[in-house]
């Protein structure tokens, strides 16, 4: 798959120079893939198969939501909960949509999304370590 990440300019230049010197070409993608593989291998103990299933299912529902958005226009300004690509509840708040959904399908993987421009939430509380 292809993905996009943001990296500090200077760090990226230094990385490019090191890769060029060590590998003799533009092999940055290959090096990044190797680094990711090593990172995951070293933390395999964190990969609970049940959790992986949950995350997979959630990401699938989220993709369904994005794909279905143009068809969900009649719910504009509302939150909808999806399960297996089907709208199972609608609410004025995320909590309302989630509560109705859990009532129908039990506490299982659902995805609650906003039909409209998703807002940002602010968590501006820095904690000073003394």
């Amino acid at each position, binding site marked *: 798959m292809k993905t996009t990440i943001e990296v500090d300019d200077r760090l990226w230049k230094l990385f490019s120079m090191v890769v060029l010197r060590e590998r003799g070409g533009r092999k940055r993608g290959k090096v990044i893939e190797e680094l990711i593989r090593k990172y995951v291998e070293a933390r395999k103990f964190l990969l609970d198969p049940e959790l992986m299933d949950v*995350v997979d299912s959630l990401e699938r529902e989220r993709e369904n939501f994005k794909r279905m958005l143009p068809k969900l226009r009649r719910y504009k300004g509302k939150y909808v909960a999806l399960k297996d690509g089907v709208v199972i509840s609608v609410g004025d708040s*995320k909590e309302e949509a989630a*509560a109705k959904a859990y009532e129908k399908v039990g506490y299982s993987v*659902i995805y609650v999304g906003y039909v409209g421009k998703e807002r*940002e*939430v602010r*968590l501006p*509380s820095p904690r000073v370590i003394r």
Partner: protein
Amino acid sequence: MRIPYSEEYDPPAPVVEVVVRSPRGKSVRLWALLDSGADITVFPRELLDELGLIPGSTVLVKGYDGSTEEHYSYFIEVEVEGVMRSLVEAVAGEDMLLGRNFLNGLNVTLRGKDLEAELIDP
């Protein structure tokens, strides 16, 4: 309910004991900071395993420095002194923070000079 500020924070801060429950029914008791600057509630990430929480949505979280990061969000039940909110959207973090998506259901008075807060369920 009157709650004294905790001196474990510097400067002292309004902290209250809460019960966090997953929709599965498992619960834990812990201390939570009343954070009127936070749009959303935060719980310690250890609770993910402890309560068997399942993500139900995603949120774009903007920090104090303006940086934004996407997080999974969870629906939890929060109880403060018998006042229960059935489902509150929350993200996993370090400390327990009661954001305005919980606090706005109560009347909260901060009396900083007296190092005391008051919570009233109207």
